[in-house]
């Protein structure tokens, strides 16, 4: 993180009123993204990772709202911007890709036109220049015969092609940052490989920084230099991906590594399930939110939430044991 930071999130909190109480979807999250950096956010469904992404874009669905914190993009405070200004930031300075490409595309508008609209909305080009740019974008995301296929509607594309179009729209204005929320979860693995290859090429060629939000730890390990592990609305561990997976400092990270099936080998001892379930964010456990599922919990874990502890340069963990320098068994080098 020696490079110039482009995104900075400090003490962000998101609360969503619900019949069960206030859901603290994002509960005091701080992190930064350097220019050109590729950061992974992993966690299970309901851990708040998508809410975190939405709050950076200020797109939290009602009645949720940001109750505290700061989000800064290249020195500009995004939370204080008027909505009109924020709209310009979205799509031009920050691009977005979501899990379901169909939800991001207009079903009754030609593919090419949808890309043109994004370019026009942010003053990228005009007239036939816009059309050429749109076709260039389709070519860049490897749509065959882009000039012809630009005239198609979304239903004429496969799921993988639609997601590539969403990437084209998300990157049409060369954003500084691209937030990809489970961009390949709905796709087949061979298509996932193609999409990740494309995102990697865009990162290398245009320097767009990427936040990849996913539950797939193997994908993060291949794609992201740095990782943030989220649990119950908080970042519980962060650091260089390979280092975190080799020597996790949070028991949840270690447990995930043992619980997730790996394609490389059949585990003789079977998978080690994490007992229990992720907590209801409206009724979080006292102290450390992971304590009901933690093998090593002590009295303090039940009483008091652990602070973010710096376990090594560039590595943090929210665990009382981490303060004692305890390192968990990580992925065995193969």
């Amino acid at each position, binding site marked *: 993180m020696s490079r110039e930071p482009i995104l900075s999130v400090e003490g962000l909190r998101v609360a969503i009123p619900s019949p069960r109480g206030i859901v603290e979807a994002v509960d005091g999250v701080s992190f930064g993204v350097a220019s050109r950096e590729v950061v992974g956010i992993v966690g299970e469904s309901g851990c708040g990772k998508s809410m975190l992404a939405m709050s950076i874009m200020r797109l939290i669905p009602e009645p949720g709202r940001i109750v505290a914190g700061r989000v800064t993009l290249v020195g500009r405070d995004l939370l204080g911007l008027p909505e009109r200004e924020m709209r310009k930031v979205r799509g031009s300075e920050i691009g977005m890709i979501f899990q379901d490409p169909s939800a991001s595309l207009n079903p009754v508008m030609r593919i090419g036109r949808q890309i043109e609209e994004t370019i026009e909305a942010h003053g990228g080009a005009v007239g036939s220049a816009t059309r050429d740019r749109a076709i260039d974008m389709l070519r860049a995301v490897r749509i065959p015969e882009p000039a012809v296929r630009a005239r198609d509607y979304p239903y004429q594309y496969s799921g993988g092609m639609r997601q590539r179009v969403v990437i084209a729209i998300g990157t049409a204005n060369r954003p500084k940052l691209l937030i990809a929320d489970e961009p390949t979860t709905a796709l087949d*693995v*061979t298509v996932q490989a193609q999409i990740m*290859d494309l995102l990697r090429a865009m990162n290398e060629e245009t320097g767009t920084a990427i936040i990849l939000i996913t539950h797939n730890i*193997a994908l993060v390990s291949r794609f992201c230099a740095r990782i943030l592990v989220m649990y119950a609305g908080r970042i519980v561990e962060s650091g260089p991906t*390979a280092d975190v997976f080799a020597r996790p400092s949070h028991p949840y990270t270690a447990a995930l590594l043992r619980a997730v099936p790996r*394609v490389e080998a059949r585990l003789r001892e079977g998978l080690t*399930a994490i007992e229990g379930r992720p907590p209801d964010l409206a009724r979080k456990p006292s102290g450390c939110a992971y304590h009901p599922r933690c093998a090593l919990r002590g009295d303090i874990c039940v009483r008091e939430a652990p602070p973010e502890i710096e376990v090594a340069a560039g590595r943090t963990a929210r665990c009382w044991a981490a303060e004692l320098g305890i390192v968990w068994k990580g992925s065995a080098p193969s």
Partner: protein
Amino acid sequence: MTTESNAILAARDLSVWFSARRPSVFAKRRWVRAVDGISLTVMAGETLGIVGESGCGKTTLGRTLVLLTRPTSGHVEFAGRELTALSSRTLRAARRRLQMIFQDPYASLDPRQAVEAIVGEPLRIVGIAAAKRRQRVAELLDLVGLGAETMRRLPREFSGGQRQRIGIARALAADPQLIICDEPLSALDVSVQAQIVNLLLRLQRELSLTYVFISHDLAVVRQIADRVAVMYLGTIVELAQTEQLFRAPRHPYSVALLSAVPTLATEGDTDPTPVLLSGDPPSPVNLPTGCRFHTRCWLREKLGNPAICAEQPPALAGDTMHQAACHFADETAAHAAPLLRPERAS
């Protein structure tokens, strides 16, 4: 029809063709060959994995094995009875111990019934008393990671993943002999997936269950399957003992599929996942001639596009441990090695 004495389920020359939408009423009727001439045998007590990408026909095959979909042609035999020869009424009794876990259980959950009634339904049918039923439902709910306290809630109060778990609990309550599991883990949290995998394995040991496990998740299949069938465009292109398939795939499509699954990177190896396949599979309406994979085959290209690939459909060939449907299966390993990361090539 089966020679193996411990075969519990067998399919012979099974085909399921759907009528495709015609461009106009005057156009010739066209067929989607979802399953096209598949024969396979499932042994009692084993887990047969069926893998492939969306549209390969694996879900249709699963539904046809329990005759939820009637085959266009071919035969299905379960526990010594030919299901395809039975009328609808006799079929129901014959396949009672042949259950299925669905991809989307919400479609089959009565929105007005509480979880207790939904999961307890198969128990009620076999006449288990209310108190015992409630206890069993509570156990099942705990097993699938929902918790017994959810018993009185309605399906709509659950997230998509939780609804999937209700469907799994209900299928398990039916005390089946063989379960066709169609993507049962896809909607579950990663930490809960392992619980369900371990649950399925434990139930298999305790109740001598047989599974046909249909999944796009190769990592899960490697953990639980004894044998794996790889499907591409309605046919089985490779059928092998699990470890044989994952260590030394013989069909170039299997190589491409396996190589696309990211492995956990280590500090010494953070190379990106190789990309061996581009584009999408061809439409099952206009199937390529010869080998169905030849239009996307990296091996064919390496071998200088031999004519046979586009002319003659290869048959599934090999020994009982490992079969592949490729004219050049013997050459796959040598040509795959340089395309993959070192640990993959071994």
